[in-house]
């Protein structure tokens, strides 16, 4: 079976004193992969290399079987959810979610349909006409997730998406994230420091230390 997930081959990147040298990583199609590791290990840099916001000095990146190393972020089929959501503060929740479809010049009717469906799936329909400033941390992250999901990306990148969320809300969001990922079958890379969060969502866990993958562990999921 052809692996259409994500392949990183011989990725090298240097910024100041920090360096990634010849990193290889393969993430299976439809897999929920959690990337963990200490502060300064290079997790966010690795995510930015995959998004195309940073360019590797050497190596190749394939997403969904397609070589994307030389493609800009807007030509990669990715959904990116950064820490604390980064919602566009001048746009309502609805217009935040519509953003990616608008810049792709989708029809207004198609955009409305996808936005309503995704908002319904995440339980945020009642928030659509609100502005981001009035939302709670959990709501902001759900809107950010919806904004990424409406694009039906081949790869979902979550950079510490729940780090600003209180523990009680976090468990619920983890379960929702996992359920949505299973339902949509999107290959997902989730950066996290939190052990419980990692155990709740991961199929496999990769430990990044000083720019290198130190360990990869399968998570035994009970049925």
């Amino acid at each position, binding site marked *: 079976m052809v692996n259409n997930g994500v392949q990183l081959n011989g990725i090298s990147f240097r910024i100041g004193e920090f360096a990634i040298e010849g990193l290889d990583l393969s993430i299976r199609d439809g897999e929920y992969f959690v990337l963990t590791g200490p502060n300064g290990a290079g997790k966010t840099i690795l995510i930015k290399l995959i998004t195309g*916001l940073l360019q590797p000095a050497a190596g190749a990146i394939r997403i969904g079987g397609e070589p994307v190393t030389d493609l*800009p972020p807007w030509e990669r089929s990715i959904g990116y959810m*950064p820490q604390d959501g*980064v919602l*566009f503060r*001048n746009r309502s929740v609805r217009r935040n979610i519509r*953003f990616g479809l608008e*810049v792709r010049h989708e029809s207004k009717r198609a955009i409305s349909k996808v936005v309503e469906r995704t908002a319904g799936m995440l339980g945020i329909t009642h928030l659509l006409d609100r502005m981001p400033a009035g939302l709670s941390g959990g709501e902001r992250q759900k809107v950010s997730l919806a904004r*990424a999901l409406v*694009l039906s990306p081949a790869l979902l990148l979550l950079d510490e998406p729940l780090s600003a969320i209180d523990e009680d809300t976090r468990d619920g969001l983890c379960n929702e994230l996992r359920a949505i990922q299973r339902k949509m079958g999107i290959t997902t890379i989730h950066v996290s420091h939190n052990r419980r969060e990692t155990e709740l969502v991961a199929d496999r866990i990769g430990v990044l230390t000083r720019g290198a993958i130190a360990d990869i562990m399968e998570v035994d999921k009970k049925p």
Partner: protein
Amino acid sequence: MQSSSSPHGRGFDRLLAVPLAAYLLLIAGLIAGVFLTITRKAVVEAFSEPALLYAIKLSVVTSVVSALLSVAVAVPAGYVLSRHRFPGHFVADTILDLPIVLPPLVMGLCVLIFFNTAIGRWIDRGIVEEGLFVYQPLGIVLVQFIVGCAFAVRVIKAGFDSLDPRYEEVAMTLGATRGQAFRKVVLPNVVPSLVAGGVISWARIFGLFGPILLVCGTMRGRTEIMPTTIFLEVSIGRIEVALVVAACMILISLGTLTIFKRLGGKGYLW
């Protein structure tokens, strides 16, 4: 007095408000003095002169054009300075401060010296024999732009500085090109700074006098603007007419500032 702090210590807050009240009283008193001194006869006399009407028109048109030009240049310039560290960044940033720090008269002298060089003469008189800038209305726009643009860049750069670069990054991962991310995400989020930059540069430009006098002279009905009218009228002893022009400048400034403060919303400066 409405206070956001606790009710305790209101006396101290009132004490802090005394200098504000004193300064407001001083400015308001000075402005009121101008309006109270103006006579009806002086108003009629001033507005019966076509030269004064021309000066008002020229002042408003040149200052608005220069402020718009300043913002048009300040947006890309401020963005580049805010988002990128390039070789010579410090030098560029320092040069940018020169028009702010230097007396405007020095900038005017620099412009005049430039137009006396071979390349300057070619630029000024290469296309039109009587010149494009020196002693010409277009020279007023050039001098105003040189002085005002630096103010616009400073304010607009501060707006870009305050906007998290992750907004653009997220926009690009959502499918927006670099240009779309700038147009649809960055610019709408710095509107108050754009308005503030335009207003600050306009405010600096509108009252500019010395360098315009040097580069463009004070030719009635040609390069005379409101500040030079005040200078000319005072120099020939027609104080009443000078006061009418000053009152016009105060009213135009107040009107413009009020409109732009409303447009800018809760922006960078206000």
